[in-house]
């Protein structure tokens, strides 16, 4: 029977299947960070356990770290303690750790692929819902909670029920100024934040094939915002070209052998999926969100929807509540709405190509008066590359802040945050109430849209600058 890529990767990792229990799934790579791991290490100590495969485990500090001068200590004592605890736990259990002082430090979902840790056909987990990012390589990658972090540390395995398969086809060709971020925001707006619950997406179709690896990562990253724990894209030559020569990627003969295995991963002709949806990339515009859930997105030429016209009372109340929080009026366009802050970064859009896209708009221009613009590279690698290309100078000369790598204002754990009532255009992944700071109002968009909005000080269609 023809198999999907999901079936193939799943099948190759089932350790055992006991009657009455979920499958025991082997995990190839476990990425660890400071926020969701300390209680798991405590659990290991309490049970007297060790880490089963420290060499299949890789840690970094990203969520709580400041994005200011790294030679200074962390000011927030609670954050400092959390980062120190990660370092101590990794020392105690023999796990490679790239914390604050390391030149390999960065957002866990940015450095995994950059270092070649993320590979096609593997199972990869992390105590973070945006682990779906790594699915862009044809890996089965999903976020887990802290109890599961402890299970993987101790046994390299997880009990899992196989999810349903959901084929997401993206046809057509993107227009200039419309990006991978707009594809995924459009998908979430179409199927809703719970549309993929219980499913693993497989993104396919000509518009997906035409994307670079970094663009594919942006798409897979936000699978969880549609409720899918994982999103996969079959590997192809674009994948292999990206991976070749990276630090932890197979080398020499091992590379050739790996390539042979990887080429067998794509879904077979005629493979059957539980669900499917199709989107035409040619019909998309730049997308922006108006509400407090990533599914509340509209094309930039559109208007804020009116909850009064909605039949489902819970949906009506959810939209009305979101508009009250955002202080936006139904029926009005979002384009042209004044903003206070622009955030360019995160595991969704903090890669070198995102920085290049933002710089292409900001080059020779200046950010609007009174606007704060933070540019936060996702990793040291992205930062070094950007500096080598002079992008940092473009951002600085435009009046933006060029900062150190980390999650930063995506979830505002580290002090980078919106003030109550402020509007921010963000290239990150969540516009939940208070996500970027208590009372802050987030408008999700692509790096191009964020940079265009930085120049004008209002929500702006980037095609104006194309």
């Amino acid at each position, binding site marked *: 029977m023809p198999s999907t890529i999901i079936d193939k990767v799943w099948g190759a990792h089932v350790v055992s299947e006991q009657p009455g229990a979920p499958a025991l799934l*082997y995990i190839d790579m476990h990425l660890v960070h400071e926020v969701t791991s300390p209680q798991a290490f405590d659990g290991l100590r309490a049970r007297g356990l060790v880490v089963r495969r420290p060499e299949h485990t890789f840690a970094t500090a990203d969520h709580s770290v400041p994005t200011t001068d790294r030679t200074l200590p962390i000011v927030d004592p609670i954050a400092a303690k959390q980062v120190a605890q990660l370092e101590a736990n990794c020392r105690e259990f023999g796990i490679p750790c790239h914390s604050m002082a390391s030149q390999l430090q960065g957002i866990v979902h940015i450095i995994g692929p950059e270092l070649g840790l993320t590979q096609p056909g593997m199972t990869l987990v992390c105590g973070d819902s945006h682990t779906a990012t790594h699915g862009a390589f044809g890996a089965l990658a999903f976020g887990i909670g802290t109890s599961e972090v402890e299970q993987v540390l101790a046994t390299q395995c997880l009990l899992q029920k196989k999810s349903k398969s959901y084929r997401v086809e993206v046809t057509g060709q993107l227009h200039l100024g419309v990006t991978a971020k707009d594809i995924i925001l459009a998908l979430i707006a179409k199927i809703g934040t719970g549309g993929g619950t219980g499913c693993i997406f497989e993104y396919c179709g000509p518009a997906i094939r035409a994307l670079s690896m970094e663009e594919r990562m942006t798409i897979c990253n936000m699978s969880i915002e549609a409720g899918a724990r994982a999103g996969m894209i079959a590997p192809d030559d674009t994948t292999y070209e990206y991976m070749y020569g990276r630090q932890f990627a197979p080398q020499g003969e091992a590379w050739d052998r790996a390539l042979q295995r990887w080429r067998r991963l794509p879904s077979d002709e005629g493979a059957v999926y539980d669900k499917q949806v199709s989107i035409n990339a040619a019909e998309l515009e730049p997308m922006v969100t108006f509400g407090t859930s990533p599914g509340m997105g509209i094309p930039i030429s559109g208007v804020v929807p009116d909850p009064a016209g909605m039949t489902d009372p819970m949906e009506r109340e959810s939209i009305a509540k979101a508009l009250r929080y955002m202080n936006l009026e139904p029926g009005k366009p979002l384009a042209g709405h004044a903003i206070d802050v622009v955030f360019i970064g995160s595991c969704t859009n903090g890669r070198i190509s995102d920085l290049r896209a933002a710089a292409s708009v900001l080059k020779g221009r200046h950010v609007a008066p009174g606007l704060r613009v933070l540019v936060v590279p996702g990793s040291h690698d992205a930062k070094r590359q950007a500096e080598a290309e002079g992008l940092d100078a473009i951002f600085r000369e435009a009046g933006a802040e060029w900062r150190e790598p980390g999650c930063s204002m995506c979830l505002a754990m580290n002090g980078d945050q919106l003030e109550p009532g402020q509007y921010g255009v963000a290239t990150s992944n969540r516009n939940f109430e208070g996500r970027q700071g208590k009372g802050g109002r987030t408008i999700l968009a692509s790096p191009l849209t964020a940079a265009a909005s930085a120049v004008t000080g209002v929500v702006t269609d980037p095609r104006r600058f194309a």
Partner: protein
Amino acid sequence: MKPFTRLESRLVPLAIDNVDTDQIIPARFLKTISKDGLGSQLFCDWRYDAQGQPKPDFILNQPRARGAEILLAGDNFGCGSSREHAPWALTQFGFRAVISTSFADIFRQNSLKNSLLPVVVPREIHAELFALPQEATVAIDLASETLALADGRKVAFPIDPFAKHCLLNGIDELGYIRQQEDAIAAFEARCGSAVNTLG
């Protein structure tokens, strides 16, 4: 893990769809390295005003929430982040079950590992529960997979048989996985030490 068998309680209704884990427990409280002390921060930004005083109109601050152990939530409850701090905060506040029409996957998994029972009911029943008088109680019986309404009607809810077994007996998954050491070792021997086990 604490066993879960039966629970009779009043309901705390929260009629909002897509409640995300950032609302359940905001990210700024995730800098803790402990599991404790999260109950007072549950729904923090909806529950307290700018001065840190409880907002009287928020349901958790109302007398009906006192001692109630079941949260009645909107569709797709617990979406967003994988933070297990969400079920930790809910259980530390005193909740032992959440009833909704659907749950986000990671939240559901995390809840089951903390003896917090996610109960999925059909839409009509869900609406009926929201319309109940505040003193009404419902009874959850895990063994029979039923929710008993105040008028005696019983509604079946789905639960994965393994999760049910673990909850009823207070079995911790890690202990169960460790019993399969032989199978894990055999798998590792078969697939070698390559990071990528496929092929």
